[in-house]
């Protein structure tokens, strides 16, 4: 069959491209990321940054989370660009609140934000306080037993 490069052909090509672009858009806006919010004492460049006694953290417009020292919580978000709002009380009992925008790398399933590091320098590059998080091996290791795959819906009758 000879291919005709007529108007219909180009319209079809354009339709396919539009659908593919739409699919890519769905990928970008539907990709879910888990953000771990960590309020633990951390050492950055040899300098210890102490955990906050109590801090209120809000990601986008999700419910605010209160974290005490050594607490860790998580939020699930979609899309890449987000806002984090942190409210805490400093050593002089002044309530400080600031908002910072950040971007989660597209293919990262899970990232961790070190709240004390962010609070110590809110203007710092996000690579200082946001990093990729990989689950420890024991958490992702599957059960040692092999799963029996049932590919036949009548297989259950064998046991009768």
């Amino acid at each position: 069959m000879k291919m005709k490069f007529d108007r219909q052909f180009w319209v079809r090509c354009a339709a396919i491209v539009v659908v593919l672009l739409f699919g890519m858009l769905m990928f970008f806006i539907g990709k879910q990321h888990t953000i771990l919010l960590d309020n633990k004492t951390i050492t950055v460049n040899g300098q210890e940054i102490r955990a906050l006694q109590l801090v209120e953290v809000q990601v986008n417009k999700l419910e605010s989370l209160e974290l005490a020292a050594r607490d860790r919580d998580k939020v699930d978000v979609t899309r890449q660009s987000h806002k984090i709002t942190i409210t805490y009380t400093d050593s002089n009992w002044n309530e400080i609140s600031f908002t910072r925008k950040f971007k989660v790398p597209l293919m990262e399933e899970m990232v961790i934000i070190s709240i004390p590091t962010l609070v110590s320098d809110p203007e710092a590059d996000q690579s200082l306080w946001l990093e990729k998080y990989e689950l420890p091996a024991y958490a992702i290791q599957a059960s040692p037993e092999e799963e029996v795959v049932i590919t036949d819906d009548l297989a259950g009758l064998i046991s009768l």
Partner: protein
Amino acid sequence: MTLQRTKSQKVLRFLGNNTVPILFLVICAFGIPLSGYSTNYLVSEVVVRIARNSFLIVSLLIPILAGMGLNFGMTLGAMAGQIGLIFISDWGIVGIPGMLLAMIISTPISIALGLWCGKILNMAKGREMVTSYIIGFFMNGIYQLVVLYGMGSIIPIRSSALVLPRGYGIRNTVNLIGIRKSLDNVLTIKLFGVPIPLVTFAVIALLCIFVLWFKKTKLGQDMRSVGQDMEVARAAGIKVEHTRIVSIVISTVFAGYGMILYLQNIGTLNTYNSHMQIGMFSVAALLVGGATVSKANIRNVFLGVILFHLMFIVSPMAGKNLIGQAQLGEYFRVFVSYGVITISLVLYEVRKKRDRGDAGQLLAAEQGEAE
């Protein structure tokens, strides 16, 4: 000129034409009081099942219009939909974007499978239903090969929640928590305490409107002509084979979308069985609604979903209350699914013979009058 019939003949004819829906009404009439379920519970369950299954059943209408009978090959589309869902689960795409992406992924697979299925069905004219049924089984083997051995080894799947412990192949069940009820929960209203997922119903309504509109288009009219008489359609210049293939492609693509809608409501994908069951239940539901191999409409879809799934809902509890075993009800509904398809096919043949007899009588009467 029409044949004169007595009242009893008319009643018998009506009963004959509506045997399956009447049978189901009787089953439900006995089953509902036995189950002991409240009206509110039954109505809410039926509403859920209408939202869950209607799209899949509507996808069967177009091949019937084209005279290809009940498209058991809809399982091909269901497989394509499931592959889309496996990918979005692996990539972590959630919500409505996830559903839409699964639909986009399923579309080329459905089109390719539909084209292939349509070409085979063109080689088996007059035996489309049994051929599509066997194609479903054949393609199930290929699907299992791809999903059980190809995914995780050749096709990259990263999520350990999806891959079997041995490192390749997809697990028996895939958790679709990311897209669970994402469409149903967009806008839900409560009517007399019954939650109605408005957006899902809107999507189903759009498909129904599409089918109604499609029947009036040139292609729809071509399909109707092909369904009535292939040779006459060919003589009229209609590309019969092409039209039949298009009907199967449309049905397969919609079946893929329907499967995604169905599974977003359920929230769990039974990787190796969901698609096979859904083909059987969709066909059975359409037949329960009073459709035949050659004639079906949207009314049949909704009547079928209501009656068939009402029986599904009440039969386990009715079985338990009657015999003391819910298992009986489970067996009963599987038995009824297969049984209803058999009864409908037998009745279709009986009706066809009866109509031929009526046509003969009419011709004889006309000839008698002319003499």
